[in-house]
């Protein structure tokens, strides 16, 4: 586990540079293929824990990076194989938004979180803490738009709404049945359809004693409405009101580990509390 911070610009290749330097310091992540032109494929390879998938990043654009998850990758053809997650349920592509200045990257054995510390957007790539770790169920929480990226993906719910240009996307490469599906944080409202946006409740987390009650957020997928696992080291708080939870940048020490509220100013002004280790 590692938490790293640094600075970047929005230029092409900037996100790849961050991942090249930091993601692969974990034994279960490596650079698997370089397609040139700022397009690379990273492999998550932890067969013992049933976590194997490929992350293709097209970082050839300024401002945003296009993200895809693949079941397999052919190094000869330089092409993905098997199942591919590359869009929201209404066809928007999936993006990690870049901005000039700070970033934070949390790398764990089976997932990573990339945070733009300026816009306070969080993106989650990889496994949940799975209720059934015999199943390989990588997820992707990121932006679904590039035009006006004002929504914090990991702080918001799935926002794969009425137009193809979705604000945020919560998707999985495989659910428990092996299907690409939209996923939802616990307590999302009325997730009756694959592209439902719904609402999420304010996650009040401070007790009358002033203590912060941290609870990693369970996640479920469409179809059977079964909990796949919990967000690893992330409490999804949603909430537009600081009085419900922590203010942006506030931290709390939980058994010696620092958790920080990451909350965007734009969009729904929503946030999440992340374990910084």
């Amino acid at each position, binding site marked *: 586990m590692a938490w790293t911070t640094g600075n970047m610009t929005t230029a092409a290749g900037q996100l790849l540079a961050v991942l090249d330097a930091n993601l692969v310091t974990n034994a279960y992540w490596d650079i698997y293929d370089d397609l040139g032109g700022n397009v690379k494929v990273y492999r998550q390879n932890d067969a013992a824990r049933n976590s194997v998938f490929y992350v293709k990043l097209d970082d050839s654009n300024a401002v945003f990076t296009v993200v895809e998850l693949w079941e397999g990758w052919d190094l000869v053809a330089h092409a993905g194989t098997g199942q591919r997650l590359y869009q929201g349920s209404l066809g928007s592509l999936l993006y990690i938004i870049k901005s000039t200045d700070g970033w934070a990257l949390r790398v764990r054995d089976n997932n990573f979180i990339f945070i733009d510390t300026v816009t306070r957007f969080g993106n989650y790539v990889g496994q949940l803490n799975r209720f059934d770790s015999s199943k390989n169920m990588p997820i992707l929480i990121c932006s679904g738009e590039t035009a006006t990226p004002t929504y914090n993906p990991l702080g918001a719910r799935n926002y794969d709404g009425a137009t193809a240009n979705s604000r945020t996307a919560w998707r999985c490469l495989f659910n428990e049945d092996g299907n690409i599906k939209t996923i939802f944080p616990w307590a999302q409202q009325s997730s009756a359809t694959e592209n439902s946006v719904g609402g*999420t409740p304010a996650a009040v987390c401070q007790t009358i004693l002033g*203590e912060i009650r941290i609870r990693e957020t369970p996640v479920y997928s469409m179809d059977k*409405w079964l909990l796949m696992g919990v967000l690893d080291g992330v409490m999804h708080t949603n909430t537009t009101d600081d009085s419900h939870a922590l203010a942006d940048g506030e931290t709390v020490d939980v058994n010696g580990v620092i958790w920080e509220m990451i909350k965007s100013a734009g969009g729904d002004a929503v946030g999440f509390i992340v374990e910084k280790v």
Partner: protein
Amino acid sequence: MAWYDVGPAMIDGAGALKALLDAYLPLNPYWSIKDAAAGANIGVYRNHDAARNSDFVLYVDDTAASYSYVQLWEDWDAVAHAGVGASVTTTLYSARLLTFLKGTSREKIGWSIRVSDHHFLLHGHGTNTTSVGNPSTQTYYVGQLRRFDESKNMPICICKSNTNTIWHSAGQTVDPICMRNWDVAGSTEYRAAILVALFDETGAASILHPPASREPNVNHSGSYNVQVIRTISGEILIEEAVIYSHNTKRLMGILDGVVQLPGSGSSTSGMMQPGYFSVYEVDGVFWKVVGGNSNDQGALVRMS
């Protein structure tokens, strides 16, 4: 703590709820009948545990046939037969009376009451089914949460705010224990579940909100939210509802032995995975699935 299945003991009729509470609450040493002469079909009960800072009075007006009005009081004068100190006698926003339904002749099967040191939970279940095949239930909670600060006396009541005695009809009723607060001015609708505290941590009366109540910036909270509790491995994730004060937006405590399962949509979507009217054993503890039928809301209540 004890769970009593009392069968069809409480049927419609004045005094029916009082008789049930008279019989079962005093079985716990921290509950007593505070005033046995308060009036015909009027029950007054005290919960008192000084060592754990629980002290309040429940007043029950059981003079009507099919419903009862309840009130929470800070204290009670058994000579004057009147409440003393702070009270919650109506909903805080719409000033409607706090109501327990006793059921209707066409639906009731029986009642159960869970009596704990600092609260009781009264649960009735019916036979009628709806388009989604769910029997209707009514469940009420009076007393303390499992408090985060036990130095504070913060009794609550979860009930209804109307006297429409049909537990479900045309898909429009709910079980109060399943719901968010629904304190809407003038509302007579079946969904009017009420969550209210005699005292929050500041000593003020407050509307309460469960965790999945959306953006409760007004006195009646927002939309339903889905709480999926079954995992892909078939296990049930027990998450008792954490309750916070509308006044302060701070978590007061945990709704003891209650897992709320709100959510709209059909049961076929699977959000109500346990299935109504079932009993589940989780780590040696039995939980009963309860719910009305409107919007498929439900809850698990611990049977001990």
